[in-house]
């Protein structure tokens, strides 16, 4: 379903979903060309969750994210050029090239730490919520993490603290494990949890918890905006599990684009290889959103193409910006150890 929002907001959600998609697809191309190193994780397939959820935040709210952060940062308003420069280890990156894909953060957007240690941000996010509560300024802390993070003891410890102290924090768990590619030999889940449904764990700590279809921007928007307003009213922490279906491009350890995304795929996935066609037809959140926009006559196909074109232009500019950015000076390595 579509979020209950005016057209301009819907267009903004569309824009951000496509921005993330094209950004990530371009990024994969840059990696394949050897333009950056290391392991990295893309957000394709989860765009509806991140974009709809983060559209509910206010300017002063905090947000914490993980190794799979690019989509969250773009949704929150990161400039794609500076984000890309960071991932390529360039001077103009948000963190001067010192953070990289794992750690890009942007404190001016309330993004205080991006940790690639699984569950590392869960305690941190409760701390930002503690500070928010202490200052009584009505801020909320939103913690976006994967289903795997619930396996770390840091998660239940933090749920306990957040619940006891009624902290204004939203735990937004993105479960991309459905039919996904597992870490275990032949396992079907990215997580390995006896506490299933995952919402059972926060519920044990008396944190209200619900599941939502993470492919459905409207459902995510409704759940998150309701949760945030309750949190802001002082009701304490909440937990939402957004379920998405793992993008087939993440089947290997390094992502591969099965079909470059075209908005036309929303109506015809004929060009996609048969093996992955089902995902594009049924599970691609961007294409689902596009179909809904058109079917509910909110937006025309032409408008969508226009947005897509603009976004592609923006991504091309970002790539250009990032590639032109120099590598940091060597002295930079010795700075910022201490404030």
């Amino acid at each position, binding site marked *: 379903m579509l979020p209950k929002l005016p057209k301009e907001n819907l267009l903004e959600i569309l824009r951000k979903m496509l921005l993330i998609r094209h950004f990530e697809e371009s990024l994969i191309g840059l990696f394949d060309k050897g333009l950056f190193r290391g392991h990295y994780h893309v957000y394709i397939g989860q765009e509806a969750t991140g974009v709809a959820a983060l559209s509910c935040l206010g300017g002063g709210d905090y947000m914490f994210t993980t190794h799979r952060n690019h989509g969250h940062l773009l949704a929150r308003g990161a400039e794609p050029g500076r984000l890309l420069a960071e991932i390529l280890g360039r001077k103009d990156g948000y963190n001067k090239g010192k953070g990289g894909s794992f750690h890009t953060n942007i*404190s001016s957007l309330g993004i205080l730490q991006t940790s690639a240690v699984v569950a*590392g941000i869960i305690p*941190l*996010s*409760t*701390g930002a919520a*503690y500070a928010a509560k202490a200052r009584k300024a009505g801020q909320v802390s939103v913690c976006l993490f994967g289903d795997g993070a619930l396996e770390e003891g840091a998660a239940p410890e933090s749920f306990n603290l957040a619940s006891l102290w009624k902290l204004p924090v939203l735990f937004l768990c993105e479960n991309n494990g459905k039919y996904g590619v597992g870490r275990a030999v032949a396992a079907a889940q990215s997580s390995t949890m006896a506490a299933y449904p995952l919402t059972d764990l926060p519920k044990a700590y008396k944190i209200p918890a619900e599941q939502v279809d993470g492919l459905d921007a409207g459902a995510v928007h409704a759940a998150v905006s309701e949760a945030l307003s309750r949190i802001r009213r002082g009701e304490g922490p909440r937990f939402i599990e957004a379920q998405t279906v793992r993008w087939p491009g993440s089947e290997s350890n390094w992502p591969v684009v099965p079909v470059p995304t075209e908005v036309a795929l929303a109506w015809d996935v004929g060009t996609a290889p048969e093996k992955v066609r089902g995902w594009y037809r049924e599970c691609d959140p961007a294409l689902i959103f596009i179909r809904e926009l058109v079917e509910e006559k909110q937006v025309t196909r032409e408008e969508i193409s226009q947005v897509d074109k603009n976004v592609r232009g923006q991504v091309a500019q970002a790539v250009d910006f990032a590639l032109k950015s120099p590598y940091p000076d060597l002295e930079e390595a010795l700075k910022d150890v201490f404030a």
Partner: protein
Amino acid sequence: MRELAYYEAKLEALGEILAADERVHLFGGSFLGLSPHRGLFQKIALAYPERVAFPPISELGFCGLAVGAAMAGLRPVVDLSTASFIFEAWPQVVNEAANAFYMSGGQTRAPVVFHIFHGLRGGGAAQHSHSPQAMLWNAPGLEIALPSSPRDVRGLLKTAARSDNPTIFVDHVQLLEMLGPVPEDDAAIPFGVAEVKRAGSDVTLIATSYLVQRCLAVAERLAREGIQAEVVDPRTLVPLDFHTLMASVEKTRRVVIVDECHQSCGVAAELATRIGEAGFDKLKTPIRRVATLDVPVPYSQRLEEFIGPSDSRISEAVRAVVG
């Protein structure tokens, strides 16, 4: 100058930092350990009920919470009581707090203080007697302060609370009862300023925390044998005032480093290496370390004393380098 007990000076500092800056919040209440005076902390807890919190036994969770609160603008001071418990919070201390400023390219500050009681406390046995400051020194991004007197605990705690960096505040229960002069004024002690706690010309004794007091006692006894030991206390390891250390080394040309960490890769190893590098031509004898022997800490009193940096081991080492 007025004279205070160490625990009084520490408590005063806690009260002062809470009064001076409303961003300061305390987590946990064992800042006086299990000492008979521990009940005095309650005064502070009652004076600042909204800024003193008692977390569950979840060191990883509440240390991480404090780091996050620091990132969001508070200045939390977290009590972990026994230093060994900081191991439970290791990922948050070493891999979140320590890296935050650097990996954000200078954006995210994490001005949190972790308070720990390190070392041989008398019957703590293997699991409660750690001195993790060496391990922590191996994690760049953390400041490390170790008071050794009533004046220093007050002065360093104030600086820790004002620092923009994550700071490990390494205390020792054996110091709590010690008496000493404490100024009335602010008297914050800047980080990175070592203090010559006793002047001497024959040998430089470098120590931190409680062992400064042991070294001072040993030095008095050695003076009766005609050996004048200079006792130098770095007070903070990060930042380190290497200059003052080397000035003493250049004067005495003989060095004993006394340290409660386990010996291998301990604080003494780092100091010895740096002095060995800078003082190669100046040293008359090899640098000696008196550290906790490389065995887990035994419970039984005699054994615990035997493996620790005891007075007798310190004086033997001094005699060996001087003799």
